[in-house]
């Protein structure tokens, strides 16, 4: 079984998000970067599925050289080898086009991504890769089990869940529940240094969209504190002042 796991290099979940004064760029100075939390789930499940010599896990990232520590961490957690496509990840389409290109050359059985990245939240890359390859995608998959060359998955839908099955090859976006993220051990960290990390140049992809600026949510004016003995007045207060209930 050959599994490709797509890794995004994202700001730590506790990082403060700050932009340049013209609001055009994210300020990455002083920010710790991590493996996207959903990608960690995907990676952990891939390692479980191939455990005991049942297959290989290749980690792939689209990024410049600054993302290599993040890729090395994926190797330390247990990926067999890794590929870095040497380019800034312009938009979801660009990223998907790079991954689809690598996938066409290598015949992976399963391509696992996180459900979405915590920086752009588009949740579009898994389905875009699948569309480019002409294979099924299961976005927001909470369970993934493999039997031979078939897979059973559980995916989230509004107000419920759905059990689906498909055969290799396919793409899935991992969500909470698929696996517990793994922490690298000392042996993993040592061996990650010598595991193969191949750098390839990107293929062309059309520019279909671009971020022109960022904005921060409006902060709330100020909190209105209600004494505990007045808690019963809350709903009337909200109706009068906010007219939403």
């Amino acid at each position, binding site marked *: 079984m050959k599994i490709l796991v797509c890794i995004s290099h994202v700001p730590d979940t506790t990082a403060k998000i700050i932009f340049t004064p013209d609001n055009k760029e994210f300020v990455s100075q002083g920010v710790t970067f991590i493996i996207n939390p959903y990608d960690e789930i995907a990676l952990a499940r891939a390692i479980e599925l191939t455990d005991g010599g049942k297959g290989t896990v290749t980690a792939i990232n689209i990024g410049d050289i600054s993302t290599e520590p993040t890729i090395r961490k994926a190797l330390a957690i247990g990926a067999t080898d890794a590929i870095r496509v040497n380019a800034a990840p312009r938009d979801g389409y660009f990223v998907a086009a790079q991954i689809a290109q690598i996938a066409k050359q290598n015949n992976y059985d399963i391509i696992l991504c996180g459900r979405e990245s915590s920086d752009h939240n588009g*949740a579009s890359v898994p389905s875009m890769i699948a569309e480019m390859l002409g294979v099924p995608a299961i976005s927001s998959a909470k369970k993934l089990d493999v039997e031979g060359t078939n897979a059973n998955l559980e995916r989230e*839908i*509004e107000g419920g869940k759905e*059990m689906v099955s498909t055969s290799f090859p396919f793409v899935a976006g991992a969500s909470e529940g698929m696996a517990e993220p793994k922490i690298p051990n000392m042996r993993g960290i040592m061996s990650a240094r010598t595991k193969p990390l191949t750098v390839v140049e990107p293929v062309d992809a059309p520019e*279909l969209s671009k971020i022109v600026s960022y*904005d921060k949510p409006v902060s709330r004016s100020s*909190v*209105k504190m*209600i004494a505990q003995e007045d808690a019963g*007045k809350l709903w009337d207060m909200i109706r009068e002042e906010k007219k939403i209930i």
Partner: protein
Amino acid sequence: MSVLVYVENVEGRFKKSTFELVSYGFAVAQKLGSSLTALSIGEVGSDELQKLSLYGASKILQAKNEKLKTVNVQPYASVIADAAKAEGAKLVVMSASFSGKGIAARVAVKLNAGLGENVVDLPDTSNGFVVKKGAYSGKAFAMVQITSDVKVISVVSNSYKVIENKVDGSVQPFEPQLNDNDFRLTVKETIRASDKISLPDAELVVSAGRGMKGPENWGMIEELANVLGAATACSKPVSDAGWRPHSEHVGQTGIAISPNLYVAIGISGAIQHLAGVSSSKVIVVVNKDVEAPFFKAADYGIVGDAFEVVPVLIEAAKKFRAGQN
């Protein structure tokens, strides 16, 4: 040229979020000086389809086929892309639901279209076509210019109002061209908690955290939600501990929601949690710790023990709702 909106149905019915989406599509079509076509896939009665014209759909396409009875992302995307081509649509709009996001991504690739996901407002068409979308897990918004000729966007529910705009709308069949390769995925079972309000669509949400001390104490949270007509949600530590299902976890690594009212009980308000709920219109925080960071992000705060405050809120909500009827 037209705007095409793909309308989801749940067991043959349209939800309020669908009418929101059609209202949104109509507003964009007006901005672009074009008309709005709605496309429904699956089994929906003609009376239900006709309702779409109340919100501005002047043409309503219905794609029906035995194999399209349940939502299946791959063939649905093919049908939508075919309809967009047949209509000469320059903009395709759909819901940023779990399946909608997957469908939007596939349709965008099929049409060589730029994609704007999780859009929260009408596009700015004063200089090109710029959409506002959520970014950094609720901590920011990104303005994305879509530069391609054909564009696809997915819109977050509760970000636009249902607005009546009655037009003459005719329901017409749309003959889907099915492709075997689109049916490699089989849906074996769909489980929907029909008695519960779906969290991503909910207008009112009651959420609780570790302050509830254990899963056995959730009865009062469910009762409050029930009385208000709200969905229930929880914080990450609660779903990690298995007190509540992962599907209820809101926050940076859970689902992001934007209800009209978010009531947080016994949740301290870690930055990751705030990220997922900060676009709620009104936030109420109940916490016994006056220093809880969530109070800084709230509109209303009550300092008190959840086990004392929540029963009072339930009784007051009963009277409040009774007074409305």
